[in-house]
């Protein structure tokens, strides 16, 4: 049987969810017998292949226009999209910015920080434009499965992936794996 193709990527996140995926420990060997990780932030290939993958996994919140592009591309190229972690599901730590507003947050970070001399807010065309509101991935693309948690338990990843490999799409995780904290 051909391996199931999986692509992962991160948006406004901390990489913690990817670390938690690796925390499935030796089970990853078994997983790699069944799936092919085509692209991820830690592989050479950074974007999901044009021919598409079966499962796309996104970590991190939607924070700027670049995040939207990445999320949309992943959505177009995968059949089942999983949002992992509290940032991708709810907005998470980056969404704390909503409490003060984007302008205020940029000002505090780049101009008013105590160690800054002659600060400048980055404003290059190369960079995504910060959004007014930080949101979860579900605000910009359709998400098939949400796995909250900061980070989600390794067992939650394992449960979701093994369920998918068995041909079932979990709707909500079992209670013991379903946490926000």
């Amino acid at each position, binding site marked *: 049987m051909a391996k199931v193709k999986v692509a992962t990527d991160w948006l406004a996140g901390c990489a913690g969810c990817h670390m938690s995926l690796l925390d499935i420990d030796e089970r990853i060997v078994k997983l790699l017998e069944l799936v092919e990780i085509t692209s991820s932030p830690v592989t050479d290939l950074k974007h999901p292949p044009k021919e598409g993958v079966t499962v796309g996994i996104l970590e991190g919140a939607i924070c700027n226009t670049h995040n939207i592009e990445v999320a949309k591309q992943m959505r177009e190229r995968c059949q089942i999209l999983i*949002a992992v972690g*509290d940032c991708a*599901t*709810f*907005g*998470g*730590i980056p*969404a*704390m910015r*909503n*409490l*003060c507003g984007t302008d205020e947050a940029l000002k505090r970070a780049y101009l008013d920080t105590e160690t800054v001399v002659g600060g400048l807010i980055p404003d290059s065309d190369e960079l995504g434009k910060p959004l007014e*509101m930080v*949101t*979860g991935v*579900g*605000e910009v693309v359709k*998400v098939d499965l*949400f*796995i*909250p948690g*900061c980070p989600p338990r390794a067992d939650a990843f394992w449960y979701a992936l093994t369920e998918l490999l068995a041909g079932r799409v979990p*709707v*909500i*995780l079992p*209670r013991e794996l*379903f*946490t*926000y*904290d």
Partner: protein
Amino acid sequence: MTMVNITMNGQKVSAPAGSTILQAAKQAGIDIPTLCDHPALIPVGACRICVVEVKGQRTLITACTFPITEGLEIQTESEQVVKARKLILDLLFSERNHYCPYCEMSGDCELQNLGYRYGLDHFIYPTYTKGFPVDATRKYFLMDHNRCVLCGRCERACGDLVANHTLGLRNRGASSMIHADANVPFGQSTCVSCGTCLQVCPTGALCDKRSAYMGHDIQMEHIKSTCNQCSIGCGMEIVTRGGNVLRIVGDWDAAVNGGLLCKNGRFDPLYDERKRVTGPLLRRGGKLQQASWEDALKAVAERIGSANAKEIGVLTSSNATNEALYLLNQLFCKELKADNVGLLNDAAPKLFEKPQGALADIIKSDVILVAGCDPVKDQPVASFLIKHSIDKGARLIVVDGKDNGLAPFAYMNLEMANISKAIDIAERAQKPVVLYGAGVTEKAAGALKKLQGKAAFVSLEPGVNTRAAVSFGFNNGFKPSAVKVLYTLLGEQNIEGSDVLKKAGENAFVVVQASFVSPLTEQADVVLPMAIWSERAGSLTNTEGSVQKVNKAVEPSGEAKPDWEVISLLADKLGKKLGASLGEISARATQELK
């Protein structure tokens, strides 16, 4: 009791008439989720998470407010109900900041638990867009409006339970805000920092400053005990983790206080910064030096053993367990025949031999006569009960000074000399209650006796275990001048010791059994370290005469020992056998107190 029969999820349930659907469900073991409802509060049906389907009703109805009637058919978890609850949760999560990982309450939050229960795994509606203020102007706990779900539990606790009416809700809909008085910072409001609102808050909106981020409830131990800060003896739970006391919460099951605590009981004991006495101290060559228990007790026993009964003086704090006071009486008064014994605080005059009322009578009364005591200052939980009774229509007459804390709430303020006027009013009332303290003069006490049989009488004793101390004969007959050996059970009491010692004469040998370093311990010849409230077991007698258990929550600091054990060890050294175990001593002390 009339029983009403209903059907819940197809199961036949019967519950007393007048029960709500929620109460009936609880009895039958059917779990209906709640958020704004709290067993101690009057239900208002604000959050609507408890909605259920009732056959024949046009819409879903709130289980917490709907009374059951014969034949009601209820579905508590039908598809329609679950759909409605999910919608309510989505709406609750869409306002303000209900993002869990950086919230103090994460893991113990009732809102979060509902999210888990109904599988809320992402926000349906656009989330919060604005920050709300955080009010940290109170010393002990803060209010983070961002975490508030406007359930109104705090407001109802403040008004309906504590009768303090500091908290209110202003504006409507999404702009509603919990506020204090006329929207002033909490720290400048009429808030008495009793912390009842903190205890009932279902989310992280109200947060204890001292124990914040110190772990989840599952990692903590709750040890039921009795508060020793005043003579009311409120039931409390000492919350500990890893041998440290994190916080104190009210025990909802306690008969005396029904879950209420005051600032003095809930917070102050945890902010005590006095230095502990951690080991026995013995004066050698004019200097107080560390010693072993053996040496310290031997020194005390030698001096006491060689003194005659007239030369021995005993002073005790009322902040001691029944067991300690019993042993102190047994050892010094019964065995050593000392009669020069005293108490470090006043006591209310003894009006009757038998109890003539209980604190529970306050809430049922129509006229409350407060004479010679200031419960607002000394027994705050009693003042909550009084104010609650005023809310229900009772009239308060304060017979005390103008600066009595209850004076602003009184229908009439009188001088002690005019107490007869108050007695006249009480005589015409249906259910009068007299609360009297140490400030009642002999004449006034005589006048009050006129109300015997008519009124319920409850003394509000100053100090803590004053009632037991007086029962064991430690009243204020202490004459310092004759004392050659003074044994002082100071315990946790804060007292300026100099005048006690001056009176005791220059050459008196002073033994102090104390928990904290104070001027008195520094002048003592022997200091015996004593465990504090959280470190000892035993019992306390409250002001109405109920004997209540105190339990040990953590290990004593250093070499400190429980109050009763110190006296028991001393008795052993003096060759007097006064009971071996705490259980045995407790039983005998309780027997004597009856």
